[in-house]
């Protein structure tokens, strides 16, 4: 009798375990096969940054999703200017937008004379100032 109960419990154990697994596999499979939701299918619109160092206008285009702006040579977009912090700001692409985030720089960043405290969305044609430097932003939307 006890053995029969034991066998029943073993069977129930497997049923519960495999129901959970089947449920998981089914739900996950469904979400994976919803192809248009794949994050990889979204292309990054290429962003071009330009600044004038007094001698020439430096233009750089980027295709990565994250960029660092600052005085340090390790930054992606290097601004050789004393008023710019070594790591001044971060540009990143998410929610289908390019975002600008000030990294607590000494002299701050401004968009249209407004100090950037929170991350903000960049549009094509924006001029952002980092310290004394003005960066001109050009965004080409490939998805459009």
């Amino acid at each position, binding site marked *: 009798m006890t053995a029969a109960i034991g066998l029943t419990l073993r069977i129930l154990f497997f049923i*519960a375990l495999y129901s959970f697994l089947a449920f998981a596999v089914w739900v*996950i499979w469904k979400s994976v096969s919803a192809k248009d939701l794949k994050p*990889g299918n979204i292309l990054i619109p290429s962003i071009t940054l330009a600044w004038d160092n007094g001698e020439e206008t430096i233009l750089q285009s980027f295709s990565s999703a994250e960029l660092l702006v600052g005085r340090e040579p390790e930054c992606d977009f290097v601004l050789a200017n004393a008023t710019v912090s070594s790591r001044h700001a971060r540009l990143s692409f998410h929610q289908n937008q390019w975002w600008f985030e000030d990294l607590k720089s000494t002299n701050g960043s401004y968009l249209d004379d407004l100090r950037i405290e929170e991350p903000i969305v960049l549009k094509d044609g924006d001029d952002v100032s980092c310290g004394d430097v003005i960066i001109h932003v050009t965004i080409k939307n490939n998805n459009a």
Partner: protein
Amino acid sequence: MTTPKLDTKPKEQPRYLALVILFVFFYTAALSISASIRAHTPNTVVDAGYALPFIGWLIGILACEKAVRVRLPNRDPWIFPIIASLAGWGILTIWRLSPSLGLKQLAWFLVGSVLVILGLGVRDLVPLLKRYKYIWLVLGLLLIALTFFVGVNPAGAGPKLWLHIFGIYVQPSEPLKLLMIIYLAAFFADQIRPNIPLLNAILPTLLLTGLAGLLLVGQRDLGTAALFVCIYGLMLTITTHRRRFLWLIPLAALVAGLVGYFVYDVIRVRVDIWLNPWLNPSGAGYQLIQAKIAVAAGGLTGTGPGLGSPQSVPVAVSDFIFTAIAEETGLLGIAAFMLLILLLTMRSLNIAQSAKTSFGRYLAFGLSTYIALQTFFIIGGNLGLFPLTGVTLPFVSYGGSSLVTNLLAAMLLMRVSTEKATNPLPLKSRQPYHWVAAGFLAILMVIMLASANFAFFQQEKLLNRAENPRWAVYDRYSPRGEIVSQSGEPLVTTIGSPGSYSRQTTYPPLSNTLGYAIGLYGQTGIEQSLYSVLRGYAGVDYNDLWWHELLYNQPPAGLDVKLNLSQSLQAKADQLLGDEKGAVVLLNAHTGEIYALASHPNFDANTLEDDWETMMQSEDAPLLNRTVQAEYPIGTLAAIPALSAFWSGQQDIYSPPEVSSKLDTACYQAMLGEEYNLNPLKFGCEAGTTSVLDNVDAASLVDSFYNFGLFSAPQVVMEVGTPAEMPTTEAYMSFFNTAEQTGVSPLQMALVAAAISNDGITPAPKLVNSYKSPTGEWIAYDHASTEQQAIPVQMSQALRDLFRSSSYALWYQSGHAQLENDGILTWYMGGTTSDWHGTPLAIAVAIENNNPALAQQIGTQLLTGVGNR
């Protein structure tokens, strides 16, 4: 533009968790009545002790679930139910193996749950981790470095990988894994950019990973070091999109393996075991062999929770917990377990792809590889696919540091997963993630195949190995059959009640033949050779056996076995042989039924566990069954095969050759024995035997030995000694010169005697008479061997005449041989003649002493005693 929403319906989540709670509940319930099932108690007895781990686990996961739901409403819905099921499965399995360790694991689980809840409350935890990446890493490395100075090992010996703080043991390499992944993810997120040269970008990580690796190697924790290299290689590949870094993994493994092999004994032993576990199955390879046997014992559906013997694998709670799960839930359980791990890693890879920040992405990826690789390392090691590394099975193995680290890792995964609700950071390519996922899937398939190989294809072979101790467990819970004598007196019985059954030998002097069945020492004698009948595998109804094994994981009660041994003749033989070392074999010359098998000195199976050391060390070899296993030199008993070789060239006229009448001390003493007679052949004078040997050629002598069965092992349902090897044609001459040193067992000589008494036909020796079917009838035991014509009828008549006793209807030959220790072995063989009216009998007596009078007395009394009865 649609806003993607992946699994963002938090209200669905409790349903998954309910299934997990149900599955762990059924597992607990099955465990709690398992003791009752095993012992066949009439009423179901529930072990209430299992309520504690279940309720403790339930409280932990419900509290975490609540916190997770409040703090992370958009988390990945699968991570938490999966880790909850893994942790529950682990805690209960550990409790089943050792309640005291289970309690500790439960406490650690609750500590981990509290830390998870606290961690969920920290705002911006993920950016915080990233910002202070070096602090975390240095902390981890410092802890490891500390083990060099104040490290301990809770087991008392072995690598000192633990820190002992406030009475608890912490293994710093566990948190270091997590801290290292955080550091790498943070560093790569900042440094891998187009305008930083690759070498500069990865150099600091290379140095720090190398340092961590060296520290671990220095601590002989090569498993964790190898894990680091693999995680590092995979993270480099993903972050830099350069496949060449994958080469780092096999390269580092090879270098580490080779260095480890030559520098550290631990590694060398592990690699050697891995390459050939069967070389030393009771020593270094023991654990791995037991692990494979445990997987085999699980079979397809497992023995049932609590019904198996997973404790036979050393340290089943930590390194080998996978084998405990495999044994009690079978391939079905292994598949489910591997699916859980696969789902967890696939979800983590998915979280990585959908992460909003590079740090989150790399962190999720690192954690995914950490969980997957560690699982593969340890399970692969358990199954012998890789050398064994002492890493834990994530969320499952016993070990507080590991469990807490794993829970925190899961918490981080869930935190990163909440980012995915918003639009993720775009990926350059999804392909590397697909390759990694495919790689994990491939390794998982390999593990499944290896498990299936042990649990299914090699199951029979593995379970039948001598190293498998499960029979001893079955013996405690299901009675073995009795062994009785020909007239039904019990020789070995089972006493006790289910759970404490033991074997009792009622006639201890027969222990060498009956054998023993003791878990620690194995099985011998009849207990071993008739194991399948006595244990209930053979002769029982197949359905009965199948149900019994399914329900109880035990074979049904074994069947009783009747031997041909006669208790009265056996007692007489034992009494006559007394304190002399030697053996007596008495059998029916016509049917081959064995009536007595006395081997002195003997052991007592009832007290063997206490006497074991003494018995093993005794120079008298009391554990040897001299009747069938001794290899005594044939000595002057070679006269009979020599005579038959001499006569084999002649037709019908059987007269002996000229025999030297020179006497030697031993044969002279034999002549003075039973009857006064000067026949040099009958009393085994050395010169007499030599005279006969001088008249035969080597080929006919070899033929004669062969015909008498002296080159073959008697088929006697018992382990017998190795027979002398039949010489090749080239070796005939050397055999001829040393014929008297040919090793023979008393049983072989008794069969020679039987052939002479039985008109030249050697009967098939029959020790076992019958077994009792489950319905109560005695069924004759089917002996595979058959009788053989050894010599022509007339020749047997001539031999009987030549060696005839002057007072009884008997023939006999005394003989002696030189023993290796310069002692004298006294031989006696004889049998009834054709004018005997009782049962035809044959006997062989060997005494490891010069005592022909006793040998003749034993022979005459046993041969004539039967007839007089």
